[in-house]
C-alpha cells in the first residue's frame, strides 16, 4: 500500500501495455472496469502502439466513456489529436455485436449456400444468436480470436462483463470444447432426429429409454428443434473446436495478460480475490490488480498545524470535524478490505484515488491512464481510531 508498492504494480501494467498482444480486463460491475480498459488502451496508443479496445459488456458504457454516442460492431478509429502531438500509435474502439458476429461466423464458415440458409433460417438460431445470455461469451471468444489475428492491431484490450460472467467468458472455450468432444453432440446427431421428423422406433432399449427421459425433462419438440439446430451446423464443428482450442491457448499464452479491477467496497474486493484465485488455478497470466475510487482519509493528511483558524465559528468547526470523522471511517473500512487482498495477491496493488470528476472524454481517460501508470496516489497512512476520537472532541 505504500507508494513504492504502487509503483511496482504500475510498472507491471506499463510493461504489459508495451509487450502483450491481448489484455483482458475483468472485475465486478461498477468498479470502473470499462474506464480502466479504455485508459490503458489509450496509454498504449500514446506510446506508439496500434491498439483496439473492445467491450463485450452488453451495457453501452464504453461508448459513454469515450464520448461516443454509440459504438458499432466494427472497430472505429478514434481521433487522438485533441490530446496534442503524438507518435505513430493509434486507438480503435468497438463493441461486440453478438448477433452480427454470429452471422458473420456462419457466412464465413458454412460449407455452402444451403447450409448457410438452413442455419440463418433456423428458429433456434434466430433466438440464440441475439437474445440468449451465454451466447455473448461464445461470440466474444470468436471475436477475440479474429481480432488478435488482425494486422491492424498489435494490442487488443478486452473489457468484459461483471465477474461472474467474465468467468463464463474464460470458461467458454472449455465448455464448447467439452460439448463438442463428448457424446452430447453425437446424441443430438443420432439418426432418429434426422430430417426433421422424429422416429420413435429407436434401435436399442437404452436409446428408447434416454429419449423417454429427455421427453419428460425437456420435451421432444424442443429436442427436435435443438437437434435441427445442431444438424444445421454439421460440417462446421471441426472449425468450432479448432478455434475454441486456439482461444484457450491464446488466453494462457505469454502474449496475453489479465488485469483485475476492483472498487474499495468489500463486495467487489471479495470478487476480485475470487477471480484472482480462479486465474491462478487455471494458470492464466495475471498482470495486475487495480483498486479504483479509493477514498482519502482527511484526518491522516495533517502536517504541522499552525494555531488559530480565522473565519471558522464553533458550529462550522464541529460540522467539519464530524464530516472528517465520517470520511475517515469510510477510508478505514476500505483500507481493511484492501489489506485483506494484499495478504494474498503476490503482486502489489495499484490504488487509484476517487477522481474529482466523472470520466467521459479522452482527456479524462488520459489522466486516469497516467495515474494508473504512475502508481496511483498512495492513500494516506494508518492512524489509530482512538486518536481520531480524541481529536474530534478536542
Amino acid at each position, binding site marked *: 500500500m505504500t507508494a513504492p508498492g504502487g509503483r511496482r504494480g504500475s510498472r507491471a501494467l506499463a510493461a504489459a501495455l508495451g509487450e502483450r498482444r491481448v489484455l483482458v480486463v475483468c472485475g*465486478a*460491475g*461498477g468498479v470502473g472496469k470499462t474506464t480502466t480498459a479504455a485508459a490503458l488502451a489509450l496509454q498504449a496508443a500514446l506510446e506508439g502502439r496500434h491498439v483496439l479496445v473492445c467491450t463485450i459488456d*452488453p*451495457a*453501452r*458504457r464504453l461508448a*459513454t466513456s469515450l464520448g461516443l454516442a454509440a459504438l458499432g460492431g466494427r472497430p472505429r478509429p478514434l481521433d487522438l489529436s485533441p490530446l496534442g502531438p503524438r507518435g505513430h500509435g493509434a486507438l480503435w474502439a468497438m463493441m461486440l455485436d453478438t448477433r452480427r458476429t454470429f452471422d458473420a461466423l456462419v457466412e464465413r464458415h458454412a460449407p455452402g449456400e444451403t447450409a448457410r440458409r438452413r442455419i440463418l433460417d433456423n*428458429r*433456434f438460431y434466430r*433466438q*440464440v444468436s441475439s*437474445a*440468449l*445470455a*451465454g*451466447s455473448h461469451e*461464445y461470440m466474444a471468444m470468436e471475436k477475440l480470436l479474429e481480432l488478435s489475428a488482425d494486422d491492424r492491431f498489435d494490442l487488443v484490450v478486452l473489457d468484459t462483463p*461483471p465477474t*461472474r*460472467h467474465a468467468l463464463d467468458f474464460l470458461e467458454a472455450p472449455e*465448455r464448447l470444447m*467439452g*460439448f463438442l468432444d*463428448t*457424446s452430447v453432440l453425437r*446424441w443430438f446427431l443420432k439418426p432418429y432426429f434426422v430430417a426433421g421428423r422424429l422416429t420413435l422406433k429407436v434401435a436399442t432399449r437404452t436409446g428408447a429409454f434416454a429419449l423417454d*427421459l429427455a421427453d419428460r*425433462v*425437456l*420435451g421432444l*419438440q*424442443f429436442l427436435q428443434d435443438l437437434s435441427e439446430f445442431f444438424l444445421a451446423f454439421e460440417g462446421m464443428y471441426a472449425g468450432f473446436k479448432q478455434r475454441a482450442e486456439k482461444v484457450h491457448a491464446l488466453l494462457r499464452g505469454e502474449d496475453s495478460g489479465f488485469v483485475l479491477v476492483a*472498487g474499495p467496497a468489500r463486495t*467487489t474486493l*471479495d*470478487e476480485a480475490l475470487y477471480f484472482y484465485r480462479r486465474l491462478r488455478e487455471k494458470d492464466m497470466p495475471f498482470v495486475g490488480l487495480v483498486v479504483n475510487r479509493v477514498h482519502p482519509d*482527511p*484526518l491522516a*493528511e495533517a502536517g504541522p*498545524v*499552525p494555531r488559530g*483558524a480565522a*473565519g*471558522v465559528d464553533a458550529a*462550522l468547526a464541529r*460540522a*467539519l470535524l464530524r464530516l*472528517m470523522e*465520517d*470520511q475517515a*471511517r*469510510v477510508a478505514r*473500512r476500505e483500507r481493511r478490505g484492501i489489506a485483506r487482498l494484499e495478504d494474498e495477491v503476490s503482486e502489489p496493488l495499484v490504488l487509484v484515488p476517487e477522481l474529482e470528476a*466523472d470520466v*467521459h472524454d479522452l482527456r479524462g481517460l488520459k489522466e486516469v491512464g497516467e495515474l494508473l501508470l504512475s502508481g496511483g496516489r498512495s492513500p494516506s497512512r494508518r492512524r489509530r481510531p482512538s*486518536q481520531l476520537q*480524541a*481529536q474530534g472532541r*478536542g
Partner: protein
Amino acid sequence: MLLDDLLSRRLLVLSGKGGTGKSVVGTALAIAARGRGKRVLLVEVDAPLEAPRYLGAPRTGGREAEVRPGLFTVNLDPAAVMDEYVRRVVRVDVLARRILDSPVYRRFFAAAPGLPELMLLGKIMVFEEARAARFSSRPRYDLILVDAPSTGHGISFLKVPLAASRAAPAGPVGHNARRILALLQDPQRTALVIVAAPEEMAVVEAQELHRAALEELGMRPRALVLNQCHEARFSREQEADILRLAADAAAGRLARGVGLPAALAAARRHVRRRKLTQFYQGRLRRVLPLPMASLPYLFDEDIGPSSIERLARRIEAA
C-alpha cells in the same frame, strides 16, 4: 407511498448498474417489507449471498433460510436448480440419478445458452406459487425480492423467457418459459425496481433499463431507488464560507492535530458530491416517470444491521 405500491405486488425484481448497491437496497427493502408484517423471501442470483452478511446472519445456500423471523434468503445456483428440476420431473430416484450422473447431461447444461437463466427464473416462479401449507390458499411468501444481475446482463437475463418461448413453441421448455413470462409481464404481480447512484453512468443505465423494460421485456418499472446520495450537512451560508476559505487557501488549526486545509478539502469533496446528488435527482425526476426514494451514502465503518435498518426507515418514509 412508494412502499405501499411495491408491497401490493408479489414479485419485485431489482436491477441497475453494478456498484450502485443493489444488494444493500434489496436487503433494506426486505426489512421494510418485513416491518409491514410481510413474509419475505430475498433471492440472490448474481453474487455470493450478501444479504445474510449485512444482517449479521450466517451464510445461506440453495435452501431458503430464515435469517430473521419472517425474512428468508436464498442463493440460487443454476446447476443445482436444474438438478432439482430433473429430480422432480423424473420422480424415480434411480432414473434421476442416472441422468444427473451422465456426462452428457452435465455438459449439455453447461453449454446450452440460456438454460441456466431459464432454470433460475423457473425456480423463482415456483417460489411465487408456493403455498404456506398443502391445501392452503395462503402463499408461503407474501413478497419475493429478486436481486437480479446488473443492467447489461440483467436485461439479457430477463429476456431469456421471451427468447425461449419463441425458440421452443411446444414442450415443457416453451411451456415453462411462457408461464415465467406471464408472471414477469403481469403488472399486478410483478414490478421492476431500478437502482441507481448519483453518477453519470449509473443514471444513463437507469434510463436504458427503464426503456428496455417497457420496450423489450414488457415489464413494468414501478420505483426508482437512488442510492449513495450525499445529503446536505452544511447550511447554505456554511457552504459559501467553506468555498471562500478554500479559495483563500485559509490556514490554521481546527482541533489538535487537525489542519483547516485538510478539513476544507474534505468539505469541498462533500459539497461537490452533494451538488452532483441534487443534479442527478433533478434529472431523474425529469426523465423517469417513477416514484423515487433517495437513500444516503453510508459512512459506517461496517455495513451491518443498523446501517440496513436506517435505509429501511428511509424507504418507509419515501
